């Protein structure tokens, strides 16, 4: 049976956009207010889930031609890698540092290695959630 999804799709476009922005915002806000890698990642993946729900797998995959397993793997490598990175700098495993830098455009900006770690977390979350959902759906 054909289904008329025009309303849904139209709304989704806007909604996904909002979610993605919001997810990114949550991700970066994490250090100082609620949010962070996990939540950011989860929100991002929920945006993807919404896409899969509204459209079908193949359409979405045409739009985002990524192997999410590898995304997840890259995420893990990031997360573990920051730990190893600290070792390379002679600090204890998983030592995070932060500092306030003066950047030309942004002014005084706080940068922390923890962001890299959080990127790893977020990537893994996105990759994993999407992998799980895709795997199940493809089994149909």
């Amino acid at each position, binding site marked *: 049976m054909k289904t008329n999804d025009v309303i849904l799709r139209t709304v989704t476009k806007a909604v996904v956009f909002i979610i993605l922005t919001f997810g990114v915002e*949550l991700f970066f806000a*994490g*250090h*100082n*207010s*609620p*949010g*962070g*890698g*996990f*939540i950011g990642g*989860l*929100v991002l*993946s*929920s945006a993807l*889930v919404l896409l899969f*729900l509204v459209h079908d797998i193949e359409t979405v995959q045409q739009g985002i031609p990524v192997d999410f*397993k590898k995304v*997840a*793997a890259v*995420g*893990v490598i990031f*997360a*573990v890698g920051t*730990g190893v990175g600290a070792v390379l700098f002679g600090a204890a*495993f*998983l030592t*995070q540092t*932060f*500092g306030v830098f003066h950047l030309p455009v942004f002014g005084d900006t*706080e940068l*922390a290695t*923890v962001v890299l*770690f*959080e990127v*790893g*977390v977020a990537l*893994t*979350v996105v*990759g*994993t*959630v999407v*992998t*799980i*959902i895709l*795997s*199940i*759906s*493809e*089994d*149909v």
Partner: protein
Amino acid sequence: MLTILMAILIPFIAAILIPFIYKFIPRINIGWFVLVVPILLFIGLVRYVPSVAAGETYIKTISWIPSAGINFTTYLDGLSLIFGLLITGVGSLVILYSIYYLSDRESLGHFYVYLLLFMGAMLGVVFSDNMMVLYVFWELTSISSFLLIAFWYHRKQSRYGAQKSLLITVTGGLAMLIGFVMLYAMTGTFSIRENIAAIGDFTNHPLFVAALVLVLLGAFTKSAQFPFHIWLPDAMEAPTPVSAYLHSATMVKAGIYLVARFTTIFGGEEVWFYAVSGIGLLTLFWGSLNAIRQTDLKALLAYSTISQLGLVMSLFGLGSVALNAGVSSDSILYTQATFAALFHLINHSTFKGALFMVVGIVDHNVGTRDVRRLGGLMSLMPVTFSIALIGSFSMAGLPPFNGFLSKEMFFEAMLMMRDFDVLSIRSLGTIFPIVAWIASIFTFVYSMIIVFQTFFGEHQPDRLDRKAHEASKGMLIAPSVLAVLVVGIFFFPNIIGNYLLRPAMAAIYPTFLDVDQLTPHISAWHGLKNNMPLLMTIGVVIIGFLLYISLHRWRSLYSVGPMLWNLDTLYNWSLKQMESSSTAITNYYMSGHLRDYLTYIFGFFLFAVGGSLVLLGGFSFDVSNDAPILINEVILVLVMAIAAVCIVFVPSRVTAILLNGVLGYSIALFFVIFRAPDLALTQIVVETVTTALFLLCFYFLPELKREKSVRSSKILNGIIAISAGVLVTVIALSVQGNKLFDSISIYFENAYELTGGKNIVNTILGDFRAFDTMLEVVVLFIAGIGVYTLIKLKARKGERDVED
């Protein structure tokens, strides 16, 4: 001079080399190479005789596991020398014999490897001073015996016998090990010598008797003492040279050795006397009684071995009285029992070895060992007959064979028990000589059966598989040597007495300083005056002869009443019962149902945790510190409770997860109320994604069915569930009422200074406890990839898996 260490190692080294020699020199019978080993060792050991007789002992230590007190200490004294000579001497003869006995088609390589392993292990047992090393070798003898019994492993009986012997001897070995461990606990050393040296310090220790009993268990199982003797007849499935060697001359005597060795330590204890001599006598009696009913010659010899071992054992028991009584001129009398035991030990090896070889020859040449089919072989196999005659008469205790001498000494020792007042069993004391005498009569009878039923009577060639003929010369050498020894020892017993027995006695009774008193002069004739032993022997011969004549009349007694009771049947029955009942039990509780398993787990949880909470009284409530409650929170809690309870009863799966979703979202709200913004966010997202997953998977899953369980199990589930809930709540409340310390989290409130983050939870996740987060990411990742593989990798129908 050959060191003792080398003596132990050479057989092992040879055992390793044998497979190679066997492979590369297939034409010459491998036995000839093997034969070199025991002969060399025998010669080497013989060279020790003079110095040992002079009271010398040799000791050498190589550390093995010093941290555990286990060191490879070899110790040579009179007692171990006797055994060493027996092992290597009889070993040489048996190997010589086996070269002719076993055909080239058998896997000789294996055979000799096992035999050498055994020889090495046995030497290890007798030459080790460290109890743990002794135990190592002890078990090794059990194993090599196991392998030898099952040499013809395709036969079911062989396997059965092998298993039986292994189970019984290893169990005994374990008991012995515990005994040793207990000794260690008392004295702090595994060295037998040091234990002996420390004697007196620990005889009152509560573990002393336990250790004694356990060590004895080891000895009894190994030496086939009643009721552990049942393995020995079945061990006769082994090739005859093995039976002659392991199951008559050496391995079974390891138990005797152990008893002799530990008499010095334990002998002073009454229990030791009762156990050793009592069990010994019982075995003597039971073995001889049962020997008569056997129709298989080897089985007959097996029972006779059992009975003879019992004899030796009981003598050692008597000998221990000397230690119990302490050093005095009276008690020295009792040491003669020990002397007799050692003497009989040697004699038994000679005549029993010869007899086994004879039976082997008969079996080999005629094709059967069944006395009912044998008869009249005397003229066909004259040499074999002579050897058999010598062996049997010696066993029966007739002159002029060595068995007579030791049997006389045995009677003498037993007669001493009449005057025995050391342990205040005067009235019971007379039982000893009586039992001994009756057993000797039976011994006489079965000795006659061996000789007369095999070699006299009617020859029945049609009932035999092969035509009877005299054995080859090579095969006769070994038994002949033993037969010569049987006669020789009778005429020159004191050579053995002075050179071998004397130092052994000194080893057993180190507290008795005067060794000469310990070694009586052995003589065949004690004069007429008060010669009770001789009278007893005469009685044995007369009654035994009468009984033998009338054997066909009373043999049927064996098939009445209690005689049918059989420890073998008990053993088989219990093994079978054990297996079937274990299957029943295990199948019962390992039902394969998840629900049952979960019930066990919760049951245990309620039992252990609930039990301890109730018994220890750990609960104490204190709600004064509680945060205030708002009405809306109460309503929410109620809503959640209702939603939760309804999950159980709803008939539709979607409703169930809807309700679960309600729970999840409400918890998110509570997280908000409890000031946990990050948690609220995460909870909401995770809840939604989980719901989506449920819905995705529901495509493949069926709608909920009504629970088919019976009502009672539902009630049980309910009870378990409610009690688990209550228990969790009670403990949680008690914990809240019982805060012992402040949390460490105060530290994290400096997060901004420490990490530059203002969201404390996030700094904990990303910095303080980043490792958790890292691993958590890994967990998530594994789950993701796992789901992928689980779905993608399906065993296709009909396709045989890689393995399965």
